[in-house]
C-alpha cells in the first residue's frame, strides 16, 4: 500500500496546487500586443492577452516548463521557467518578423505593376483600364513618371532617352521587335496583349545587372503561369476579330489565339489625317503551352507569328508632289521558352530560356524596294542562391546571335553580331532598414569586337513604417545604332551613367513618390557629313562616324495616387521634368534633341460604378513643346512646337448574357478634338513648313470580349 501513497504523492501536487502565470506581451517598442497566445509548451495551459497585452492563467504544472508566446507576424518567443516557486509578472518582448512593412525594398528607378507584391504601385489591370492607353502596355507606361510622350514614334522615351534606349524584355528575354513595323510619323502599337502578363516592371534607370543593352530603361514583362478562363473566347471590335481558346488540366495548359484585323471600317468612321491606300490589314496567331513537371518547376513555351499589309501616301517634303507612296508588308515570328525551378526549400532558383525571333519588312517607297530583315536567337541562364537573412546572390549569362539586314532593290546588306554577357549580383540586407544591391555586368559584342564592364549599385533605407529613401547608380552600355555599323565597325559602345535618388511613402492606399536623377551620356556616335543638317528622320546615315558625342539629362518626377479618399474612385497624377542636351548624330553643337519635352503631366482617374458594373476612366495628358529643326533659324533646334493636350475617356461594362460573360468597351481619344502638332518639317528649299500630327484627331473605338464558358465559373469581380 505504501506505493499507492507514493503514487498519490506524485500526482497530488498537480491536482491541488495551481500556480498562476501572468505578465504582459509587447513589441520591441513596448506597444501592447492584444490577442497574443501565451502558453506552457506541451500542456493545455495558457491564455490570450487582452487589449492591454496582459495575460494571466493558471497551471497545475510544477516543474520547469517552456513558456511560449506567439503572435501573428512576430517571431515565436520561448523561455524556460521554473514553477517551483511562485512567479513574478513577466514582461515578454516579441520580435517582429520580416515583412513588407518593416523591411526595406530596393525601389529606385523601378515602377511595378504586380498582383503579388504589395509594394507595387500599379496592378496589371490598371494597364487595360487606363483611358488613352488603348490597352497597349507601352501606351500605359507613357503616363508613368519619367516617361516622355513622343506622338509620332513608337517606343518608350525615358528621362531624356530616345525610344531606342529602352529594351522590352519578356521573361528575361529581349524582344527584338516589340512594336508593329514602324511607319513614317505614325505611332505603332505593341505586339503583345497586356493580358498575357502577370507583372510589369518599368525601370526608369539604375536597373539591375541582369539586363543590358539599354542606355535608359528596361520594361520587364512577366508572363502568367496559368490560364484565366477555361474555354472559348471571342473578341470583336471595330478593327479586328479574334478567337481564343484555353484548356488546362492539372499540370498543363494551352492557350491558342487567332485573329484577323482590318482597319478599313474604323477609318471609314474616324477621319484620318493620313492618306491610306490600303488600310492596315493583319492576321496572326499565337500558342502558349505551360507544363509543371515538378513541384516548383514550370516550363512555358510561347510562339506567335503575324503578317501585315498596308499602303499609305505619307507626307514627304522632299518630293515634288509632297507625297510619297509607301507599301509595307511585314512577317514577324517570335518564340520564347523558359524554364524556372527551385530546389532546397527555395535556396536555389533557376531561370533559363531560349528565344528566337525573325522579322521581315518588304517596303517600297515610290516603287523603290527597301527591305528590312532581322533575326535574333538568344539563350539565358540565371541561378539565384538564397542566403541567410533573405540575402541573395545570383549569377547569370546570356548569348545572342543577331543578324540585321537592309536591302535596296534586291541587294541585301547584312550585319552579324554575337553578343554575350555575364553578370553577378547580390542583394544584401544589412539591417531590416538598410539594404543594398551590388552587381556587375560584362558584355562582349563581336560586331565591334569590344567588351565592357558595367557596375550597378542600389541602396535603400527605410525611414519609417511606410516610407523609404533609395539611391541607385550605375553604368549602362548599348551598341551603337546598327545602321552606323554598316560603314564603321570600329565604333565603341555608347554609355550612360545614372544617378537616382528616390523617396516614397505608401500608406493606406495612398502613394507618394518623388525621384530626382542625373544621367551622363558618353561615347555617343557623331556623324560628319560635311553638309547641312538633314532633318529627315528616315535618312540612312552615310557620313563618317566616331564616338565623340556626349550629353546629359537631369530632372525629377513625382507620382501621387489615391485610392482611398473617395469611394470607388482611383486617381493618380504624375509630373515629369527633364532638361537635356546632347552632342550626337549630325549635331554640330550640343542641343536639346527633338524627342525631349521638358514637362509631362498626366492625370488619370478611374471610377467603378457597382450598380451598372461599369468602369469609367478619364485621362488628361499634357506634353510641353518639343524642339524642331528650322533651317531658317540660325540657332540650331531653338524652335519649339506648341504643347500637346489630350483628354480621353474609356468605359467598360460587364454583362452576363445567357450565362456568358461579356465585356463591352468604348473609348474616345482626344475628346476635345485638339489639333495637336507633334513636330514640323520643312521642304528642302526651307520655304514651306509641314506639321506632323496624330493619325486622327478625335477618334473613337468600340469593342467587346465574350467569354463562352460551359459553366458560369466567373468570379465576383472581373475588374
Amino acid at each position, binding site marked *: 500500500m505504501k506505493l499507492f501513497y507514493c*503514487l498519490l504523492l506524485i500526482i497530488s501536487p498537480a491536482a491541488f496546487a495551481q500556480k498562476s502565470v501572468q505578465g504582459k506581451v509587447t513589441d520591441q517598442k513596448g506597444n501592447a500586443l*492584444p490577442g497574443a497566445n501565451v502558453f506552457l509548451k506541451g*500542456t493545455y495551459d495558457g491564455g490570450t492577452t487582452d487589449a492591454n497585452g496582459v495575460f494571466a492563467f493558471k497551471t497545475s504544472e510544477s516543474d520547469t516548463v517552456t513558456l511560449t508566446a506567439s503572435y501573428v507576424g512576430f517571431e515565436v518567443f520561448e523561455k524556460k521557467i521554473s514553477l517551483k516557486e511562485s512567479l513574478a509578472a513577466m514582461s515578454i518582448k516579441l520580435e517582429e518578423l520580416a515583412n513588407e512593412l518593416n523591411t526595406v525594398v530596393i525601389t529606385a528607378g523601378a515602377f511595378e505593376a504586380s498582383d503579388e507584391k504589395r509594394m507595387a504601385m500599379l496592378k496589371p489591370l490598371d494597364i487595360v483600364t487606363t483611358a488613352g492607353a488603348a490597352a497597349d502596355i507601352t501606351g500605359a507606361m507613357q503616363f508613368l513618371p519619367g516617361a516622355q510622350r513622343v506622338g509620332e514614334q513608337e517606343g518608350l522615351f525615358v528621362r531624356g532617352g530616345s525610344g531606342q534606349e529602352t529594351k522590352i524584355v519578356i521573361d528575361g528575354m529581349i524582344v527584338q521587335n516589340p512594336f508593329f513595323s514602324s511607319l513614317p510619323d505614325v505611332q505603332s502599337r505593341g505586339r503583345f496583349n497586356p493580358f498575357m502578363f502577370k507583372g510589369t516592371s518599368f525601370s526608369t534607370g539604375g536597373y539591375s545587372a541582369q539586363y543590358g543593352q539599354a542606355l535608359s530603361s528596361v520594361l520587364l514583362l512577366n508572363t502568367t503561369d496559368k490560364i484565366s478562363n477555361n474555354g472559348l473566347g471571342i473578341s470583336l471590335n471595330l478593327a479586328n476579330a479574334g478567337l481564343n481558346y484555353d484548356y488546362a488540366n492539372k499540370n498543363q495548359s494551352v492557350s491558342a489565339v487567332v485573329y484577323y484585323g482590318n482597319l478599313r471600317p474604323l477609318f471609314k468612321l474616324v477621319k484620318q489625317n493620313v492618306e491610306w491606300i490600303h488600310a492596315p490589314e493583319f492576321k496572326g496567331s499565337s500558342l502558349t503551352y505551360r507544363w509543371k513537371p515538378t513541384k516548383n518547376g514550370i516550363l512555358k513555351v510561347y510562339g506567335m507569328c503575324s503578317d501585315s499589309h498596308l499602303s499609305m501616301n505619307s507626307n514627304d517634303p522632299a518630293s515634288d508632289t509632297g507625297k510619297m507612296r509607301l507599301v509595307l508588308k511585314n512577317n514577324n515570328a517570335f518564340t520564347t521558352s523558359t524554364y524556372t525551378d527551385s530546389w532546397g526549400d527555395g535556396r536555389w532558383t533557376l531561370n533559363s530560356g531560349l528565344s528566337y525571333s525573325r522579322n521581315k519588312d518588304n517596303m517600297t517607297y515610290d516603287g523603290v524596294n527597301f527591305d528590312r530583315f532581322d533575326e535574333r536567337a538568344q539563350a539565358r541562364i540565371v541561378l539565384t542562391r538564397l542566403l541567410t537573412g533573405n540575402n541573395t546572390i545570383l549569377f547569370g549569362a546570356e548569348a545572342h546571335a543577331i543578324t540585321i539586314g537592309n536591302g535596296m532593290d534586291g541587294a541585301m546588306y547584312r550585319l552579324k553580331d554575337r553578343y554575350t554577357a555575364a553578370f553577378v549580383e547580390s542583394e544584401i540586407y544589412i539591417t531590416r532598414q538598410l539594404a543594398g544591391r551590388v552587381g556587375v555586368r560584362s558584355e562582349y559584342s563581336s560586331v565591334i569586337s569590344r567588351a565592357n564592364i558595367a557596375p550597378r549599385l542600389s541602396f535603400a533605407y527605410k525611414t519609417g513604417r511606410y516610407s523609404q529613401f533609395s539611391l541607385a547608380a550605375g553604368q549602362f552600355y548599348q551598341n551603337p545604332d546598327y545602321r552606323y555599323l554598316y560603314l564603321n565597325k570600329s565604333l565603341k559602345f555608347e554609355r550612360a551613367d545614372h544617378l537616382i535618388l528616390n523617396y516614397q511613402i505608401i500608406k493606406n492606399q495612398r502613394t507618394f513618390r518623388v525621384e530626382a536623377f542625373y544621367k551622363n551620356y558618353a561615347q555617343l556616335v557623331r556623324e560628319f557629313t560635311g553638309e547641312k543638317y538633314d532633318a529627315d528622320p528616315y535618312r540612312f546615315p552615310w557620313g563618317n562616324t566616331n564616338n565623340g558625342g556626349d550629353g546629359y539629362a537631369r530632372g525629377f518626377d513625382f507620382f501621387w495616387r489615391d485610392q482611398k479618399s473617395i469611394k470607388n474612385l482611383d486617381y493618380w497624377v504624375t509630373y515629369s521634368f527633364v532638361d537635356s542636351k546632347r552632342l550626337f548624330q549630325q549635331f554640330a553643337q550640343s542641343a536639346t534633341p527633338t524627342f525631349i519635352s521638358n514637362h509631362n503631366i498626366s492625370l488619370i482617374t478611374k471610377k467603378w460604378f457597382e450598380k451598372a458594373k461599369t468602369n469609367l476612366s478619364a485621362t488628361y495628358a499634357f506634353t510641353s513643346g518639343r524642339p524642331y529643326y528650322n533651317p531658317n533659324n540660325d540657332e540650331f533646334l531653338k524652335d519649339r512646337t506648341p504643347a500637346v493636350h489630350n483628354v480621353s475617356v474609356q468605359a467598360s461594362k460587364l454583362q*452576363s448574357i445567357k450565362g456568358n460573360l461579356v465585356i463591352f468597351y468604348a473609348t474616345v481619344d482626344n475628346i476635345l478634338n485638339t489639333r495637336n502638332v507633334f513636330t514640323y518639317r520643312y521642304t528642302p528649299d526651307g520655304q514651306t513648313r509641314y506639321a506632323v500630327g496624330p493619325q486622327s484627331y478625335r477618334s473613337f473605338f468600340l469593342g467587346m470580349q465574350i467569354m463562352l464558358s460551359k459553366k458560369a465559373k466567373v468570379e465576383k469581380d472581373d475588374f
Partner: protein
Amino acid sequence: MKRLLTFTLLFALATGMAWAQNEKYTKAMTDGINALMAIDRSKPDAKSLQDIGNRFERIAAAEPKEWLPKYYAAYTNVLLGFVGATLTEKDQYLDKANALLKDAETIAGKPNDELEVLKAYQSQIHLAADPMNRWQNDGEKFQGFLQAAKSLNAENPRIYFLEGSSLFYTPDEYGGGKKVAKPILEKAQQKFNAYKPETAIHPDWGKMETEWMLSQTN
C-alpha cells in the same frame, strides 16, 4: 498477492492516466469547437475568434500527433482573415491559416478531403479580401481544391456548401446569384442531412450557413 495488487493498481493508474489524457484532449477540443460554433457568424468577434484560435494552437502544441487541433486553428484563422480590419491584417491571418494547414497535412500523412475543403475556403476568403486583383488566381485555386476534395470524398457536404456560397455571393451578371446557387445549396443540405462526422470533434460546420442561405433564396 500484494505484489499483484500493486501491479494491477499501477496498470490501472497508467491506463487511467492515458485515458484521462485522451479525455482531456476530447474535452478541450469539444470546448473549443462549442465556443467556435457559438460565435455569431454574421458578425464574428475578432477577439473571441483570436482566443479560440489560440486555444486550438495550444492543444496542437501539446498533441503533436493530432491533425484536428491544427485544422481548427487554421479554420479559426480563415474566419479571422474574413473579419480582419485591413488587407495586411487579413493576409497575415490567411498566411497563418495556410501554414497551419500545411502542418495538418504533414500530420495527417495522407490526402484528406476536409483539409482540401479548408484550403478552398482559405482561397475564397483570400479572394474576398481583394477581389479585383485576386479573382483570377484564387478563383482557380478554389476550384482546384474543391475538385481534389470531391475526388477524395464526394459526400463531404462542405464542398457543396462552398460551391453554393461562392455562387450565392457572385452577382447575377457574372453567372452567379441566389437562383443559380439554390440547387447546389439544396444538394449541400441533402449531404449535410446524410452526413455523420467520424467523431464528435471532426469537422461538422457549414450546415447552419447553408440553411441560412437557402432561406434567402426563396
